[in-house]
């Protein structure tokens, strides 16, 4: 009676060995391959929060669609917000290859059992915020996302390639918007500086806590899900952004920001991690508003879903 259990152990060891060999060879894991349960759960968590972030990320900028200053800006912003919806859908699609269910993930988001990026809990106070989100927030997202194109899980990596192609447009339209405003009136220039002052530190927080406070990073690295450490990516972002700020003519709000001649990299001041903790735990300026709107989108539009289903059943 014990034989089947023994066989299962042997099988599992063989499957684990094959999985490890695939990862070690730098090959991709595909949906129907055997994978350790921890790998699957880690991926579902990560892909789901990523998808939620894209969907919630439509809101701060979407607030400006009806107030865009020109038809050109409106068309650009509409395309960008539509892209965010698309990115969310690519990612839910990748999560579903792991056995997750999109409707269930959405419910978990609305019940606040799964989270989205803290950055979207800040308000967009002026049109300059639209530009700064494109430049800094999408710039930081690109730093995070480019390495994910080589993630060990095939469907996730393929979704990220698609996302990264489109993200470049997001960053460039933001920077161009800011350049236009910096060429405008002193009031417009002040709006840009104010937006930079508000978004700079939250953008640095997007990379997560310092490496010595990320205990599970090592496992994700070993699995090829994560490719670079939080601090490494944060430093890369700062080094990329400082020269861009100089061209734009804005000041980044950090008196300690300085070039380290020896390394060629920029040193920056301490980050207030208590703020990140506050915002993530639900105390940010817009947490309630974001979730309430997502809930309303699900509930108020349920009749559309039901009508389309009824139509499909009638014509089946």
């Amino acid at each position, binding site marked *: 009676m014990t034989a089947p259990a023994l066989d299962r152990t042997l099988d599992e060891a063989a499957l684990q060995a094959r999985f490890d060999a695939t990862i070690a060879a730098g090959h991709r894991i595909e949906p129907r391959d055997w994978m350790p349960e921890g790998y699957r759960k*880690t991926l579902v968590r990560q892909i789901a929060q990523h998808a939620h972030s894209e969907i919630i990320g439509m809101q701060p900028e979407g607030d400006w669609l009806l107030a865009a200053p020109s038809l050109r800006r409106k068309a650009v912003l509409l395309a960008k917000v539509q892209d965010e919806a698309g990115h969310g859908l690519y990612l839910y699609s990748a999560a579903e290859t792991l056995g997750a269910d999109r409707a269930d993930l959405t419910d978990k988001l609305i019940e606040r059992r799964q989270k989205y990026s803290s950055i979207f809990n800040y308000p967009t106070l002026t049109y300059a915020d639209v530009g700064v989100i494109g430049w800094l927030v999408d710039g930081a997202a690109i730093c995070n996302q480019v390495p994910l194109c080589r993630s060990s899980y095939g469907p996730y990596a393929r979704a990220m390639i698609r996302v990264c192609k489109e993200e470049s447009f997001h960053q460039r339209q933001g920077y161009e918007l800011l350049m236009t405003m910096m060429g405008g009136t002193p009031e417009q220039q002040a709006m840009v500086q104010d937006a930079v002052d508000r978004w700079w530190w939250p953008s640095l927080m997007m990379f997560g806590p310092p490496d010595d406070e990320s205990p599970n990073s090592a496992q994700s690295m070993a699995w090829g899900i994560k490719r670079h450490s939080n601090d490494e990516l944060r430093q890369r972002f700062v080094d990329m952004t400082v020269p861009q700020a100089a061209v734009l003519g804005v000041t980044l709000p950090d008196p300690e920001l300085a070039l380290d001649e020896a390394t060629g990299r920029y040193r920056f001041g301490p980050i207030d991690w208590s703020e990140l903790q506050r915002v993530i735990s639900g105390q940010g300026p817009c947490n309630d508003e974001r979730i309430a709107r997502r809930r309303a989108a699900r509930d108020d539009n349920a009749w559309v879903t039901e009508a389309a289903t009824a139509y499909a059943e009638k014509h089946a």
Partner: protein
Amino acid sequence: MTELTAEGGHGAVPTGPEVPVADRPAVSRRDWPLYEVFVRGKRGLNHVHVGSLHAPDDEMAVHAARDVYTRRNEGVSIWVVQAADITASSPDEKDPMFAPSGDKVYRHPTFYEIPDDVPHI
């Protein structure tokens, strides 16, 4: 500090074991059927799998695929098929299914030695 990861795009989100991932029956009505989407990038190329989406019926699936997967001239033709209708080889069958072609090197042109001075072969 709870476990946060920046990986996953816009970053700095709790991803520790306290975040639930197991399926439960959704509060909202269950989703529409899952469709797999294939796009022909341009004339002369095959349709290639690009991802999936949910739609109530075939026609809506084509419309949704257009919006989700071809916003930038990525395609000139779209196929959709319900995921449930696809029959696939099993990854567990990998060895018995594909191994026989491994030892049939004579199916490749390089198996045959032809003198260098024979033209056009």
